């Protein structure tokens, strides 16, 4: 069977293996978009991987004044964990420490879920008895007096158990510069897709991991098969001319959203063609036995 190529870039016939997660969305507003972004970035700052951050999170998109409940500029944030209890804890801590504290901010539900997560319902206690609740159109908002005025926070937000984490693309190339440029382009293209985030720094992971390690207690370690400096020593998956591999990890509120993001990503990566220096696009999996979601690159590219 001939190799599948897009603009000379080989699309390896494999699949990304992804896992079910629970996810939620909140909307953060502020007097300016800049301050809404500061608040959202702080809330999702240390949220690249559930391995050690407790949650995976990121900024989904910015919202215009028309799209927010208070008519101020806003940012939609997605947050994912492996179960509902952890998501509740992470949401409370992150909104409590990063949004409540942020000047002029307010926080609202961003998802109509079958189940609810507490938002203002737990943060209201910061008001020490001076908090006030207001119900408008069936939605409850808490007004919590703070030094900067009043922090308004919706009572609850929805959650979805249909979320998927760990959709991914691995990009191989003949120079670090080429791979980074292609991946940066891809992250930008994926940012346009609703319901997904790329939680790693700038959307890109440079240190993909394998499960386990030779050291006791280390649950993940470097993916040696894709480390270009180890080509001569380990059973490498890389050709000799590959200088760098970068990965884009995608979390989404649904499997379809991840497919769509991967589609946009692949085409953005291949846009520069093989001439740019990108040689392969592949994906990470564990043989297919661990994660129920398989995103086959061949199907996604079409």
């Amino acid at each position, binding site marked *: 069977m001939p190799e599948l190529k897009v603009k000379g870039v080989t699309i390896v016939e494999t699949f990304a293996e992804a896992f079910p997660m629970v996810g939620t969305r909140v909307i953060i507003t502020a007097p300016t978009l800049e301050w809404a972004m500061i608040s959202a970035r702080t809330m999702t700052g240390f949220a690249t991987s559930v391995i050690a951050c407790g949650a995976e999170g990121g900024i989904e998109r910015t919202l215009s004044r028309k799209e927010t409940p*208070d*008519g101020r500029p806003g940012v939609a944030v997605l947050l994912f964990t492996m179960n509902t209890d952890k998501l509740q804890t992470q949401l409370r801590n992150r909104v409590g420490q990063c949004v409540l504290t942020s000047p002029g901010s307010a926080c609202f539900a961003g998802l109509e879920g079958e189940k609810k997560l507490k938002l203002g319902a737990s943060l209201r206690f910061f008001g020490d008895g001076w908090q*006030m609740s*207001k*119900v*408008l159109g069936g939605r409850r908002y808490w*007004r919590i007096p703070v030094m900067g*005025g009043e922090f308004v926070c919706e009572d609850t937000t929805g959650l979805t158990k249909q979320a998927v984490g760990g959709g991914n693309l691995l990009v191989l190339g003949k120079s670090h510069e080429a791979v980074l440029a292609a991946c940066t382009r891809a992250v930008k293209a994926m940012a346009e897709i609703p319901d997904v985030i790329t939680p790693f720094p700038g959307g890109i992971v440079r240190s993909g991991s394998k499960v386990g390690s030779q050291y006791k207690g280390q649950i993940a370690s470097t993916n040696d098969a894709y480390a270009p400096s180890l080509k001569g020593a380990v059973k490498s998956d890389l050709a000799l001319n590959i200088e760098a591999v970068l990965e884009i990890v995608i979390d989404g509120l649904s499997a379809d959203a991840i497919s769509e993001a991967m589609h946009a990503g692949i085409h953005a990566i291949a846009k520069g063609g093989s001439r740019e220096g990108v040689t392969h696009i592949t994906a990470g999996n564990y043989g297919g036995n661990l994660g129920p979601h398989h995103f086959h690159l061949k199907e996604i590219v079409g």
Partner: protein
Amino acid sequence: MSALTFELKHTPDQRLDLSPLVPAKLAGLNRKEIEALAINTTREALTVGDAFKVKGKDAENIRFEGTDERCDKIGAGLAGGVILVDGDTGTLLGTKMKSGKIGVTGSAGMLTGASMSGGEISVNRDVGDQAAGVAFGETMGMKGGFISIGGDAGALLGERLRRGLIVVGGKAGDYAGARMIAGTLLLKQGAGRYAGYGNRRGSLIFLEKPKDILPTFSDSGVMEFDYLRILEKWLREQGLRIRFGARARRLMGDMAVLGKGEMLILV
């Protein structure tokens, strides 16, 4: 399907209790059965057919035409559906209603929306005393929902209000928000004396500075309230365009009781 319409035949010479004429009680009845329903009155026994000309079929969508201030309890206990009244209504319009919508083109009498727990009432002109107040046998006033009054409201608006929002386009009478537990009154043209008397946690929002403020309301100064932005936007979505911005003076009270309520006076 056309709206089930009740057209008043002639001016009633006694008060009419129209509480049976709600969707839940009319569903599945044909016109003859509806016309045979009894109406509670004060003197002579009466059926629906005696007082009204009945037209249309859709019991989820009821219209009253030509009603006056003796037509009481329209939409009482409403639990879904729409009632439109082309005319005035008597007392207890939409009392104890749970959901659905009532619209009145004219004025409504006393105890409009008393102890209602949900849904929406809009009255284009005035309402009588004790709107959103305490229905007979109840301990609390309105417990949820939305009332919009185009004209003036009588005394004791929102008495013992527990939850919900009331917007008054005109003036409210004395004791607006008296003894209110929580909830919100938005008064476009102020209120009479003793507004917020005994207010525990409720909000009285004044678009204009009221002439008379109880001494038991304590000034917290002017600041921005994001809640007012949410309220303004939500009202606009309901078709009420009221511009009031986010800056307001906050007075807390009534300090004679719990003191966690507020007056927000827009600046």
